């Protein structure tokens, strides 16, 4: 009996000592990585990409009844998994539907990348532990109302009850905008799905969110004709993937996968022809983008040492180019031609004052 008690006490002491040792060891590890993360290596070691996505927004990130997550943002997760892990199915979709905790997920390393209709802003870039890669979707904040409401612009919204997603830039935009136009309003805040439900049940007069968000929610409804989106746009909302601060290696990979997918559309590389293009590249640029030698020359690695030179090729093979992703996931629900998300090179046919701004930086 006495020996047993002594044993327990000894075990407790050993446990404490171990705890101290672990804590100190952990501390050393963190200290060494200061200013320079190694998310790419972490993903490779884990064999799976942890992608923080929305699961409640049709077209962008939405969980289907059978449990699969689909949408525009999801395709970029697959592209990144294909680029880093050579397998676009090796993605764990972490639910980041709650806007107010999404950056915590990133900061606490619960996710590797946040692809969740997140707007780039200066304050987020500076105040939060997040860095933004290339914009994947350009939109702006709009307003949805019922068709019979008689509201045609925000100047008709005096004292209106406005449903707005909390923890978003829309919340601040609407506060700023109503101060500017000198009107009062009554906000109803909550999770994006909850405020949308509240709006569609008649709790609010107005639902405000990114115009693309509004379009996606109304498009999937049976009574879509009862609602309209006002033409008025009160903000810029460039939606981009977010990564942790101080990890330029990983940020560059994310960045250039997005650029690569846009460039692929610009020069006509598609999911269907990428293999044939890689086998027989028509010019040096295609060879460089796909990471293959041109006419027996060297493969250009361009300094990407954590991934192999074919990472963009694999991304294209997995999900297609930017235009293919758009057509497959969003399609006609949000028309693309001559809107911000069209390619700059297509603008010649657009009416005056309209046109796209999607433009890939040169991959060389």
């Amino acid at each position, binding site marked *: 009996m006495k020996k047993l008690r002594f044993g327990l006490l000894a075990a407790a002491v050993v446990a404490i000592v171990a705890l101290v040792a672990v804590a100190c060891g952990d501390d050393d590890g963190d200290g060494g990585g200061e200013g320079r993360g190694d998310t790419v290596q972490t993903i490779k070691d884990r064999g799976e990409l942890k992608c923080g996505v929305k699961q409640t927004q049709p077209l962008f990130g939405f969980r289907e009844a059978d449990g699969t997550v689909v949408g525009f943002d999801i395709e970029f997760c697959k592209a990144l998994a294909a680029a880093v892990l050579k397998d676009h199915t090796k993605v764990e979709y972490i639910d980041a539907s709650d806007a107010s905790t999404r*950056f915590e997920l990133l900061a606490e390393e619960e996710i590797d990348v946040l692809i969740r209709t997140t707007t780039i802003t200066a304050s987020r870039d500076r105040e939060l*532990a997040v860095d933004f890669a290339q914009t994947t979707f350009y939109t702006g904040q709009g307003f949805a109302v019922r068709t019979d409401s008689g509201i045609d612009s925000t100047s008709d919204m005096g004292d209106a009850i406005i449903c707005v997603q909390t923890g978003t830039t829309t919340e601040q935009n609407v506060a700023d905008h109503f101060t500017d136009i000198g009107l009062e309003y*009554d906000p109803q805040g909550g999770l994006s799905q909850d405020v949308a439900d509240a709006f569609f049940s*008649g709790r609010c007069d107005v639902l405000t969110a990114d115009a693309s968000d509004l379009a996606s929610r109304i498009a999937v409804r049976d009574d879509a004709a009862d609602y309209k989106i006002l033409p008025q746009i009160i903000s810029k909302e460039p939606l981009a993937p977010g990564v942790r601060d101080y990890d330029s290696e990983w940020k560059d990979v994310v960045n250039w996968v997005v650029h690569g997918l846009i460039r692929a559309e610009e020069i006509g590389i598609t999911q269907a022809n990428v293999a044939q293009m890689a086998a027989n590249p028509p010019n040096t640029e295609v060879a460089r983008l796909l990471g293959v030698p041109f006419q027996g020359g060297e493969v250009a690695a361009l300094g990407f040492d954590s991934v192999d030179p074919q990472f963009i090729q694999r991304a294209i093979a997995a999900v297609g180019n930017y235009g293919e992703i758009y057509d497959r996931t969003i399609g006609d629900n949000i028309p693309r031609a001559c809107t911000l998300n069209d390619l700059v090179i297509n603008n010649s046919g657009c009416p005056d004052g309209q046109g796209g701004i999607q433009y890939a930086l040169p991959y060389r």
Partner: protein
Amino acid sequence: MAVATGSAPPPPSEVPLLYRRGVRRLLTQGIYVAITAVVIGYVYTSLDLREFGFGFLNEPAAFKVGNQWLVDVDGVTNSRITMYLVGVWSSLRAVLVAIALSTVIGVLVGVARLSSNWLVAQMAMLYVEIFRNTPLLVQVVLVYTILLIGAPLIENVVNVGDFFFISNRGMAMPWPVPDEGFWNAPIWFVGVWVAALIAMAVVAGRVRAQRQERERETGQPQYGNRWALGVFALGAVVSFFALGAPVSMDEPMIVGTHYIEGMVMEPEFTALVAGLTLYTSAFIAEIVRGGIQALPRGQTEAANAVGLSGYQRLTLVILPQALRQIIPSVTNQYLNINKNSSLAYAVLYDDLFRVANIVQNKAGHALEMFFVIIVTYMLISFAISVVMNFFNARVTAQRI
């Protein structure tokens, strides 16, 4: 101290090292200090890249908080801490109303469970079993969903006599509002009214003494305290209005699709308070029932023997004694109401937790914000405990 059995403890030198009191104490305290040091050290080292401080709370908020009542804060010129305090006020409101309602309903249901009327007792039992055995979150969300989907749209609002409206934007009802001169009323008004109040207090004191005297003489209950309170309240109200009260009733109206004026009880508030009340009142009912059943049957029999009515038996004999059992347990339920009020998150009610979340989402500083949240909840809990301990001291002051 004589040792009866004669087996004296062995001298310190024979006790194994680890069983010596001094060593034991040193060791346990050492382990405690070590754990504390590790935790603090770990938190400190993982924080060294971030700035720790509360300065971010003074920055402009740039968001507006909903469900405001008696305050009007637009969030553009106000600081983040102001918006947080608006959230605290929303939480407090829900907690106070839920405490009051769940106490009343809980006592009624608890007493009803012991009713000799079979139907009443069974209904009370059904109430307790339903609301005690389902999760609070489910109840809150269910009530909210019913209010949003079940209540009519504002276009088809239920209009009760043009002063009470029900729609899925809430219930609107008349509410007294101070007139413009309320806060800078003339000095003579305040003076006269205070004088009237003092006079009323004197009158009330006389009434109380008189009735207590009669109670002693006749042996019939004369309810001296209640009479005194009634006289004072009546006098205060009458004199207030006689002096031309600077308060008017604000009747709600519907303009377009909005309520204006009056008081609007929004569905978010109603859902949260209803959920908290249903859930907690079921627990309080059980506490009340237990407290009453713990009394010896002789108390009831004695009350019957001296000819008290059922109501008198309950209010004069049973409840005052049962309160000694009930109050500590009910205090726990009140603390639960405070903590459970954070479920406002599920029904779009802008309570302190949601506002804190918004601030944290904008400014980062999660650790500081959680510190503020925890301190706030603890302060509210502490205030509830202080009040309840006061009541507890009163009911236990008399020994039985």
